[in-house]
């Protein structure tokens, strides 16, 4: 079920009513409703894959119990590795089987050996990368003694399947979310209203910004050979806003929805395009994944301790693995490696933690230097996104070749965007408004956290209505969330 669908618009109030009015204050019943709703939410897409979630839930619940009972270190380690191996095996099969097979066949062909690969028509279960990482975090944290294993199966099933973040995150840690399923939830008016504001902004980002940018970006990327450098630059910029609006919009809706049910999910985006260097960007982009890799891969590898070579190796590993997590394609791996290349100079110069505050904190405008750094960092990410969006590496290289050519200094023709639902100038105006609201709200949890709260009531309500009207009137063609495929 998509957040931006009529199905969800009906589903959410029904679950809300069942959760607060039927289950009342009975925690077990509330958890049961969360689990049932989550399975309906997921099964709406394809009920056959519910068995995978259930299996993953049973496996890690059982391993948690096992880790509690077993004291022998070798047995505990075996249990942990069983969890890691089985979870990653599922992920590997559904997501990477054909990729490895194709590359294996290609590698043998390179050495003159012709072998036949039995590629399979494997359907990628929505959200498998997200819930697999979430359950893995539970087993690892229990193993490390950071979390007491739960004996409450319903709470654990609710933690694994919690519908707002089940298919595209934020990837929650058991230490943060699981205890919330043990505690009594009482309805909090302010929290719920703020949740609604966050949902509204998330929908605006997804439907108005991302879906419209998607149409323009797809037009340019799908016909990139026909366009000059300046149009290719616009295409890359549109994709840059598309992916941010799409994914951060999803996260906003997920977090806002959770707040309606009394849950607090971790933040996933913190205005990443206002970053002054790439290290800051990665502290602000897909935070739940970056911190997952930091805690469960980077630090166990030694982190930034050790000699220069180890630092470089560890940085490369997490960026490349992070890229590979996004999909079984060399484009994602190169995207990760490119970001590693951006990051390593900062790490080596010990400047990777320079910008821990928010840009222009307490001020309206940034300083010239801040603006320059922000634009430079933004430019680097735009180039990296080309690999992320391209069909394959050759396409990305051709795209870059076309972009960095003399035609970059020509004016894009209006005819380049014929057939799009919105006029390019309308989209530019929307992006300008979007940028403005995000800039104003950059020191807060989400862009509408405080915006308008001091305005006169009719103005504030009018502003919310304007967003609703924009969502309905200017919404682009309904697109699935990009991160569903990961």
């Amino acid at each position, binding site marked *: 079920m998509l957040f931006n*669908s*009529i*199905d969800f*618009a009906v589903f959410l109030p029904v679950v809300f009513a069942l959760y*607060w009015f039927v289950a009342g204050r009975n925690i077990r019943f509330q958890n049961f409703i969360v689990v049932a709703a989550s399975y309906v939410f997921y099964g709406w897409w394809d009920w056959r894959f519910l068995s995978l979630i259930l299996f993953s839930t049973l496996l890690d619940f059982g391993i948690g119990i096992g880790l509690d009972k077993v004291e022998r270190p070798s047995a505990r380690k075996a249990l942990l590795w069983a969890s890691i191996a089985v979870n990653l095996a599922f992920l590997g099969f559904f997501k990477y089987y054909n990729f490895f097979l194709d590359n294996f066949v290609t590698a043998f062909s390179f050495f003159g050996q012709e072998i036949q690969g039995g590629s399979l*028509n494997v359907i990628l279960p929505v959200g498998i990368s997200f819930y697999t990482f979430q359950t893995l975090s539970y087993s690892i944290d229990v193993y490390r003694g950071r979390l007491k294993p739960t004996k409450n199966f319903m709470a654990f099933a609710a933690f694994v399947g919690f519908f707002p973040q089940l298919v595209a995150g934020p990837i929650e840690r058991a230490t943060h979310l699981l205890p919330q399923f043990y505690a009594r939830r009482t*309805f909090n*008016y302010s929290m*719920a*209203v703020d949740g*609604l504001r966050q949902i509204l902004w998330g929908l605006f980002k997804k439907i108005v910004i991302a879906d419209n940018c998607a149409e323009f970006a797809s037009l340019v990327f799908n016909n990139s050979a026909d366009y000059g450098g300046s149009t290719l630059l616009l295409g890359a910029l549109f994709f840059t806003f598309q992916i941010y609006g799409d994914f951060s919009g999803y996260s906003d809706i997920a977090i806002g929805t959770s707040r309606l049910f009394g849950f607090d999910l971790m933040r996933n985006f913190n205005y990443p395009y206002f970053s002054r260097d790439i290290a800051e960007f990665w502290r602000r982009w897909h935070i739940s994944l970056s911190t997952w890799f930091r805690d469960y891969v980077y630090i166990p590898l030694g982190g930034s301790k050790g000699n220069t070579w180890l630092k470089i190796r560890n940085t490369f590993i997490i960026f490349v693995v992070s890229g590979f997590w996004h999909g079984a394609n060399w484009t994602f791996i190169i995207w990760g490696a490119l970001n590693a290349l951006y990051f390593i100079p900062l790490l080596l110069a010990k400047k990777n933690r320079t910008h821990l505050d928010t840009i222009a904190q307490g001020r309206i405008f940034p300083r010239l230097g801040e603006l320059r750094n922000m634009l430079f960092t933004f430019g680097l990410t735009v180039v990296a996104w080309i690999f992320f969006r391209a069909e394959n590496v050759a396409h990305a290289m051709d795209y870059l070749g076309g972009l960095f050519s003399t035609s970059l200094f020509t004016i894009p023709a209006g005819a380049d965007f014929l057939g799009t*639902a*919105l006029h390019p100038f309308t989209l530019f105006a929307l992006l300008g408004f979007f940028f403005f609201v995000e800039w104003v709200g950059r020191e807060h949890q989400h862009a509408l956290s405080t915006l308008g709260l001091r305005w006169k009531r009719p103005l504030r*309500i009018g502003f*919310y*209505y304007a967003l*609703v*009207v924009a969502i*309905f*009137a*200017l*919404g*682009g*063609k*309904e697109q699935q969330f990009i991160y569903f495929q990961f």
Partner: protein
Amino acid sequence: MKKFLLKSLLFLIPVLACIVTVFSLADGFTDPFYMRFATPSQTSLIIGTSRAAQGLQPAVLNEVLGRSDLFNYAFTMDHSPYGPTYLKSIQRKLKEGKGSQIFIITADPWSVSSSSETPNDIQSFRERKEFLGGTFLVNMRPNLIYLLRYYNGPFIDLLRQQNNSTFLHDDGWLEVNITMDTASVSKRIKSKLEDYSIKMSKYQLSTARLAYLEETISFLQTQGTVYLVRMPVHPELQKMDDQISPDFSEILRAISKKTKCSFLDLKPMNGKFQYTDGMHLYKDSGAEVSEMIGSWIFGLEK
């Protein structure tokens, strides 16, 4: 909680009112399908893919047959091939008539073919996740469910005067107004041939779909009289049809015999009509074919 619910409701009521008001402006220009879901339930139907949607004109048929209830409920080969989804939608659209109901069922090889590797696997039928499966209310105006789920574009377009080349009439006929000079038609036929030659590598005849064609006929026979028709197509496109199923007319003849319904094969007349793109009859030819089918039914009813 009371305050939250009350304020939320107060906020939502104007939003819903606006949605209903704007959506009530949707009409035959909105898209090629909407009006079929925004009209009352019907007693007599034309069933099939886009060949029937554009080719068969209920107004002409009604005139020939001296009736007023025929409604075109045909969509496209992607949305309405024979299968459980289309059958269920037909059942939703149908209401019991007082007199003798008639049903014109058109079929072509694509309407009983599947594009998946397992052509008889109902779960992988291409139309399952399209609008026919998801539009469970098909007689509602404005049809909020269809528009919210499947309208392909910004809703602001509903407020604008549309200047589309297609118009979906209230009786379900999709009128297409495009230039018919030789060069344009040749270009469109060429493009269609390219498109279908790509499709042909994926499509294969499905016995499960043929069984659903039979089931659709049998179901509609419980409501009235069924007439099975093979629609004409441009001779170049006919070659594609023949590659999917060389003996398709024989298959339909066998089905008509088995289900005891009359069958009209218009394949031999392929060359007599004008097509917009090779696949679809131009409206003048559509009127001609509709009149021909009407006369055939009229003759059988006598």
